[in-house]
Protein backbone atom coordinates (compact mmCIF):
# COMPACT_ATOMS: atom_id res chain seq x y z
CA UNK A 1 0.00 0.00 0.00
CA UNK A 2 1.25 3.48 -0.88
CA UNK A 3 1.12 6.36 1.60
CA UNK A 4 -1.46 8.12 -0.57
CA UNK A 5 -3.83 5.16 -0.40
CA UNK A 6 -3.28 4.87 3.33
CA UNK A 7 -4.08 8.56 3.72
CA UNK A 8 -7.28 8.12 1.70
CA UNK A 9 -8.42 5.35 4.04
CA UNK A 10 -7.28 6.92 7.28
CA UNK A 11 -10.65 8.48 8.22
CA UNK A 12 -12.43 5.16 7.78
CA UNK A 13 -9.65 3.34 9.65
CA UNK A 14 -9.94 5.76 12.58
CA UNK A 15 -13.73 5.34 12.50
CA UNK A 16 -13.40 1.51 12.31
CA UNK A 17 -15.37 1.49 9.07
CA UNK A 18 -12.98 -0.54 6.89
CA UNK A 19 -13.59 -4.22 6.30
CA UNK A 20 -11.15 -6.66 7.92
CA UNK A 21 -8.96 -7.00 4.82
CA UNK A 22 -8.65 -3.25 4.27
CA UNK A 23 -8.05 -2.60 7.97
CA UNK A 24 -5.24 -5.17 8.00
CA UNK A 25 -3.65 -3.59 4.91
CA UNK A 26 -3.71 -0.17 6.57
CA UNK A 27 -2.40 -1.60 9.84
CA UNK A 28 0.52 -3.29 8.08
CA UNK A 29 1.37 -0.08 6.24
CA UNK A 30 1.24 1.93 9.46
CA UNK A 31 3.57 -0.51 11.22
CA UNK A 32 6.18 0.07 8.51
CA UNK A 33 5.69 3.79 7.91
CA UNK A 34 6.42 6.16 10.81
CA UNK A 35 5.07 9.20 8.94
CA UNK A 36 1.68 7.60 8.32
CA UNK A 37 1.65 6.24 11.87
CA UNK A 38 2.18 9.79 13.16
CA UNK A 39 -0.68 10.95 10.96
CA UNK A 40 -2.94 8.17 12.19
CA UNK A 41 -2.18 8.90 15.83
CA UNK A 42 -2.85 12.58 15.23
CA UNK A 43 -6.28 11.90 13.66
CA UNK A 44 -7.20 9.43 16.42
CA UNK A 45 -6.10 11.97 19.04
CA UNK A 46 -8.21 14.67 17.38
CA UNK A 47 -11.26 12.40 17.29
CA UNK A 48 -10.88 11.71 21.02
CA UNK A 49 -10.45 15.43 21.66
CA UNK A 50 -13.71 16.25 19.87
CA UNK A 51 -15.55 13.50 21.74
CA UNK A 52 -14.28 14.40 25.18
CA UNK A 53 -14.82 18.12 24.62
CA UNK A 54 -18.45 17.67 23.61
CA UNK A 55 -19.64 14.74 25.68
CA UNK A 56 -19.24 16.39 29.06
CA UNK A 57 -22.66 18.02 28.63
CA UNK A 58 -25.28 15.91 30.33
CA UNK A 59 -28.99 16.51 30.88
CA UNK A 60 -29.69 18.43 34.12
CA UNK A 61 -31.01 16.21 36.94
CA UNK A 62 -34.18 18.26 37.36
CA UNK A 63 -34.94 17.92 33.65
CA UNK A 64 -34.43 14.17 33.80
CA UNK A 65 -36.87 13.91 36.71
CA UNK A 66 -39.39 16.14 34.98
CA UNK A 67 -39.25 13.94 31.88
CA UNK A 68 -39.58 10.79 33.96
CA UNK A 69 -42.79 12.14 35.49
CA UNK A 70 -44.19 13.30 32.16
CA UNK A 71 -43.51 9.93 30.55
CA UNK A 72 -44.83 7.78 33.40
Amino acid at each position, binding site marked *: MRCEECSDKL*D*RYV*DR*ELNDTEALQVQLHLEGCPDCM*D*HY*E*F*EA*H*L*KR*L*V*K*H*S*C*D*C*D*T*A*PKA*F*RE*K*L*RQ*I*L*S
Partner: protein
Amino acid sequence: MAEPAAQTAFAEEALTHLDTLYRGALRLTHDPDQAQDLVQEAYLRALRYQHSYQAGTNMRAWLFAIMRNLFWDRFKGSRKEDVSLDDLGEFVLFEKLRDEGARPEADVLDKIAASEVVSAVDKLPPLHREVVLLVDVEGFSYKDAADTLGVPIGTVMSRLHRARQQLQKSLYDYAVESGIVRPGGMKQVPQT
Protein backbone atom coordinates in the same frame (compact mmCIF):
# COMPACT_ATOMS: atom_id res chain seq x y z
CA MET B 1 -51.66 3.12 23.38
CA ALA B 2 -49.41 0.52 24.98
CA GLU B 3 -50.18 -1.21 28.28
CA PRO B 4 -49.00 0.85 31.30
CA ALA B 5 -46.22 -1.61 32.18
CA ALA B 6 -45.00 -1.73 28.59
CA GLN B 7 -45.15 2.05 28.37
CA THR B 8 -43.12 2.39 31.56
CA ALA B 9 -40.52 -0.05 30.29
CA PHE B 10 -40.34 1.82 26.98
CA ALA B 11 -39.96 5.17 28.77
CA GLU B 12 -37.24 3.80 31.06
CA GLU B 13 -35.25 2.45 28.15
CA ALA B 14 -35.74 5.66 26.21
CA LEU B 15 -34.49 7.72 29.15
CA THR B 16 -31.18 5.83 29.16
CA HIS B 17 -30.44 7.79 25.96
CA LEU B 18 -31.34 11.18 27.40
CA ASP B 19 -27.76 12.50 27.60
CA THR B 20 -27.17 11.71 23.92
CA LEU B 21 -30.35 13.53 22.92
CA TYR B 22 -29.70 16.48 25.21
CA ARG B 23 -26.12 16.91 24.00
CA GLY B 24 -27.28 16.74 20.41
CA ALA B 25 -30.09 19.23 21.00
CA LEU B 26 -27.74 21.58 22.83
CA ARG B 27 -25.21 21.55 20.02
CA LEU B 28 -27.95 22.06 17.42
CA THR B 29 -29.84 24.87 19.20
CA HIS B 30 -26.97 26.44 21.20
CA ASP B 31 -29.53 27.13 23.93
CA PRO B 32 -30.18 24.97 27.06
CA ASP B 33 -33.86 25.98 27.31
CA GLN B 34 -34.55 25.29 23.64
CA ALA B 35 -32.63 22.05 23.94
CA GLN B 36 -34.83 20.91 26.83
CA ASP B 37 -38.01 21.90 24.93
CA LEU B 38 -36.81 20.01 21.88
CA VAL B 39 -35.87 16.90 23.82
CA GLN B 40 -39.13 16.90 25.79
CA GLU B 41 -41.14 17.14 22.59
CA ALA B 42 -39.06 14.39 21.05
CA TYR B 43 -39.77 12.08 23.98
CA LEU B 44 -43.49 12.82 23.86
CA ARG B 45 -43.51 12.09 20.15
CA ALA B 46 -41.52 8.89 20.70
CA LEU B 47 -44.04 7.74 23.28
CA ARG B 48 -46.90 8.50 20.92
CA TYR B 49 -45.27 6.57 18.09
CA GLN B 50 -43.65 3.81 20.13
CA HIS B 51 -45.58 1.25 18.10
CA SER B 52 -43.38 2.20 15.12
CA TYR B 53 -40.21 1.36 17.05
CA GLN B 54 -39.03 -2.18 16.44
CA ALA B 55 -37.78 -3.74 19.68
CA GLY B 56 -34.18 -4.82 19.44
CA THR B 57 -33.21 -2.17 16.89
CA ASN B 58 -31.18 0.92 17.69
CA MET B 59 -33.41 2.98 20.00
CA ARG B 60 -30.76 5.67 20.44
CA ALA B 61 -30.63 6.26 16.69
CA TRP B 62 -34.44 6.20 16.47
CA LEU B 63 -34.80 8.80 19.23
CA PHE B 64 -32.06 10.99 17.79
CA ALA B 65 -33.80 10.91 14.41
CA ILE B 66 -37.05 12.12 16.01
CA MET B 67 -35.22 14.90 17.84
CA ARG B 68 -33.26 16.15 14.83
CA ASN B 69 -36.33 16.03 12.57
CA LEU B 70 -38.17 18.17 15.12
CA PHE B 71 -35.21 20.53 15.15
CA TRP B 72 -35.36 21.00 11.40
CA ASP B 73 -39.17 21.40 11.52
CA ARG B 74 -39.17 23.92 14.35
CA PHE B 75 -36.05 25.94 13.77
CA LYS B 76 -35.35 25.58 10.11
CA GLY B 77 -38.81 25.10 8.63
CA SER B 78 -37.60 21.77 7.21
CA ARG B 79 -35.27 23.68 4.88
CA LYS B 80 -32.05 21.79 4.85
CA GLU B 81 -30.06 24.06 2.60
CA ASP B 82 -26.65 24.28 4.04
CA VAL B 83 -23.61 26.45 3.77
CA SER B 84 -21.21 24.83 1.37
CA LEU B 85 -17.85 23.95 2.84
CA ASP B 86 -16.37 23.18 -0.54
CA ASP B 87 -14.57 26.53 -0.75
CA LEU B 88 -12.14 25.46 1.93
CA GLY B 89 -10.39 23.01 -0.36
CA GLU B 90 -8.26 20.30 1.16
CA PHE B 91 -7.10 21.29 4.64
CA VAL B 92 -5.23 18.67 6.65
CA LEU B 93 -4.17 20.04 10.03
CA PHE B 94 -1.53 17.35 10.54
CA GLU B 95 0.20 18.26 7.28
CA LYS B 96 -0.16 21.98 7.96
CA LEU B 97 1.50 21.64 11.36
CA ARG B 98 4.21 19.38 9.97
CA ASP B 99 4.97 21.87 7.18
CA GLU B 100 5.42 24.54 9.83
CA GLY B 101 7.75 22.45 11.93
CA ALA B 102 5.45 21.76 14.85
CA ARG B 103 6.75 18.45 16.23
CA PRO B 104 5.29 16.40 17.64
CA GLU B 105 2.11 17.58 15.96
CA ALA B 106 -0.18 16.12 18.63
CA ASP B 107 1.32 18.45 21.24
CA VAL B 108 -0.62 21.26 19.57
CA LEU B 109 -3.88 19.39 20.26
CA ASP B 110 -2.99 19.08 23.94
CA LYS B 111 -2.82 22.86 24.16
CA ILE B 112 -6.28 23.50 22.73
CA ALA B 113 -8.96 23.98 25.38
CA ALA B 114 -12.11 21.87 25.26
CA SER B 115 -14.21 25.04 25.04
CA GLU B 116 -12.43 25.97 21.80
CA VAL B 117 -13.19 22.57 20.33
CA VAL B 118 -16.86 22.93 21.25
CA SER B 119 -16.84 26.41 19.72
CA ALA B 120 -15.35 25.01 16.49
CA VAL B 121 -18.05 22.31 16.37
CA ASP B 122 -20.75 24.93 16.98
CA LYS B 123 -19.49 26.97 14.03
CA LEU B 124 -20.11 24.12 11.59
CA PRO B 125 -23.27 24.39 9.47
CA PRO B 126 -26.02 22.23 11.07
CA LEU B 127 -26.03 19.52 8.40
CA HIS B 128 -22.32 19.00 8.94
CA ARG B 129 -22.46 19.53 12.69
CA GLU B 130 -24.97 16.74 13.21
CA VAL B 131 -22.74 14.22 11.41
CA VAL B 132 -19.81 15.10 13.68
CA LEU B 133 -22.10 14.77 16.71
CA LEU B 134 -23.30 11.34 15.66
CA VAL B 135 -20.01 9.82 14.47
CA ASP B 136 -17.33 11.55 16.55
CA VAL B 137 -19.16 12.42 19.77
CA GLU B 138 -21.71 9.61 20.06
CA GLY B 139 -19.76 6.92 18.22
CA PHE B 140 -22.42 6.01 15.64
CA SER B 141 -21.37 3.85 12.72
CA TYR B 142 -21.68 5.45 9.28
CA LYS B 143 -24.70 3.21 8.63
CA ASP B 144 -26.48 4.18 11.84
CA ALA B 145 -25.71 7.84 11.16
CA ALA B 146 -27.07 7.47 7.61
CA ASP B 147 -30.25 5.80 8.89
CA THR B 148 -30.68 8.49 11.54
CA LEU B 149 -30.26 11.32 9.07
CA GLY B 150 -32.15 9.64 6.24
CA VAL B 151 -29.28 10.00 3.76
CA PRO B 152 -26.98 7.53 1.95
CA ILE B 153 -23.75 6.43 3.65
CA GLY B 154 -21.79 8.28 0.96
CA THR B 155 -23.43 11.52 2.05
CA VAL B 156 -22.45 10.86 5.66
CA MET B 157 -18.86 10.27 4.56
CA SER B 158 -18.65 13.38 2.41
CA ARG B 159 -20.25 15.62 5.04
CA LEU B 160 -17.97 14.16 7.71
CA HIS B 161 -14.90 14.73 5.56
CA ARG B 162 -15.79 18.36 4.88
CA ALA B 163 -16.85 18.95 8.48
CA ARG B 164 -13.54 17.63 9.80
CA GLN B 165 -11.58 19.81 7.41
CA GLN B 166 -13.54 22.87 8.55
CA LEU B 167 -13.08 21.87 12.17
CA GLN B 168 -9.34 21.46 11.68
CA LYS B 169 -9.14 24.84 9.97
CA SER B 170 -10.98 26.48 12.89
CA LEU B 171 -8.65 24.84 15.40
CA TYR B 172 -5.62 25.88 13.35
CA ASP B 173 -6.86 29.49 13.23
CA TYR B 174 -7.36 29.42 17.00
CA ALA B 175 -3.90 27.93 17.52
CA VAL B 176 -2.37 30.72 15.45
CA GLU B 177 -4.38 33.50 17.13
CA SER B 178 -3.51 32.23 20.60
CA GLY B 179 0.18 31.82 19.82
CA ILE B 180 0.21 28.02 20.13
CA VAL B 181 1.38 27.89 16.51
CA ARG B 182 3.57 30.44 14.76
CA PRO B 183 3.06 30.14 11.02
CA GLY B 184 6.13 29.86 8.82
CA GLY B 185 8.96 29.38 11.23
CA MET B 186 7.93 27.50 14.30
CA LYS B 187 10.45 24.81 15.09
CA GLN B 188 8.75 23.41 18.14
CA VAL B 189 5.58 23.79 20.08
CA PRO B 190 6.08 26.39 22.83
CA GLN B 191 6.04 24.84 26.27
CA THR B 192 3.58 26.16 28.85
